[in-house]
């Protein structure tokens, strides 16, 4: 058992052939070009693209310097470089998903407020035109304006 573990630790577990490295680099470059194209066609806003460029550059760096991943795994204290790679990717995706939840929450709050403002505007229009037949609008723009919260 101990002999087996020793054998694993001595032998690098990831063998990147030059072929796979070239493929990984091509994918990384294509990925970043795709991000650029999305920005160019207004499908993606710049502020959301930064993290994807960093991911693309990370992929490219991993393809060009095969020793990088092994070094990172060593710093993490992980024997298997595959495990290190997957852990890093998982954590990044988790962080990204959380980030999107935060953005979604903010936008949901903004959409709600927008809907409310529109509803209030309609209600004010109705009271001003006196459609409801009850008391016509004694309140006008003045009461709405003198409130500091408005």
């Amino acid at each position, binding site marked *: 058992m101990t002999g087996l573990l020793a054998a694993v630790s001595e032998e690098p577990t990831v063998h990147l052939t030059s072929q796979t490295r070239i493929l990984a680099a091509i994918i990384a470059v294509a990925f970043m070009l795709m991000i650029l194209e999305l920005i160019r066609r207004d499908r993606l806003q710049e502020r959301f693209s930064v993290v994807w460029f960093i991911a693309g550059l990370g992929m490219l760096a991993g393809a060009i310097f095969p020793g990088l991943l092994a070094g990172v795994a060593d710093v993490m204290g992980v024997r298997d470089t595959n495990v290190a790679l997957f852990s890093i990717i998982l954590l990044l995706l988790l962080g990204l998903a959380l980030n999107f939840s935060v953005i979604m929450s903010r936008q949901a709050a903004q959409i709600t407020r927008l809907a*409310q403002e529109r509803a209030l505007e*309609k209600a004010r229009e109705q009271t001003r035109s006196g459609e409801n037949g009850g008391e016509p609008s004694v309140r006008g723009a003045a*009461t709405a304006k003198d*409130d500091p*919260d*408005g």
Partner: protein
Amino acid sequence: MRTLVFIPAWNEADSVATVIAGVREHLPEVDLLVVDDGSSDETAARAAEAGATVAALPFNQGLGAALQTGYLYALREGYDFCAHLDADGQHPPAEVARLLEEVRADRADLVIGSRYREPGEAKSDDYRPTLSRRIGTSVFRFFLTLATRQRFTDTTSGMRAANRRVMRLFSENYSPDFAEIESLQLAVRQGLRVEEVPVRMLERVGGSSFLTPVHSAFFIFKGLVVLLVGQFRPRNGEAGGEPGPLGKAGVEQ
């Protein structure tokens, strides 16, 4: 002294006109606003026919957002007091008048109409909650009392009266997901005087409760999470203090 009574309504076309007529009868001096929460039926039209002002949300946003719309309208239009009741007809308008008396007399900032009288004192024609509702109610009652150190019996009551301090707070900070419980916790934490008044409630005229047992369990779980998170929100001495980033989101833009 101007008072607004608002009615959040979602697909309550059958009962909304009756509720409006009831409010007009018992509270002739108030202005009436129906917040139509993106109904797909004739709720908005019926409410306008019955003589209420209608604030129609373009799509369904949930009870919290609808209530917040009412508070926002009351605040912006300069009302001194406001009250709200459900559109399904289970809240007698006469009882709303009693709640309003409490805030007008400045005995409280926020008054909740509680459907529960003193425990064990229920009368035969009183509101009868279902079993899952009773379990949920006692769980919330326990934890809200724990969180606020104030005794509440009806934590999910949709019949309330409030003054301008509450309008200011609720128009900025109001959870769209979990309106009733979190708002009570928030108001108490902000140092507002919250009071409960026992009221009679009736069986609903139209519509149906959204609470199935699975819903109830989820509802309770969500409520507990919301209460727990609420305990870690900053406590301000002054009502209407710094709103959270979500509460402020719309105003910033």
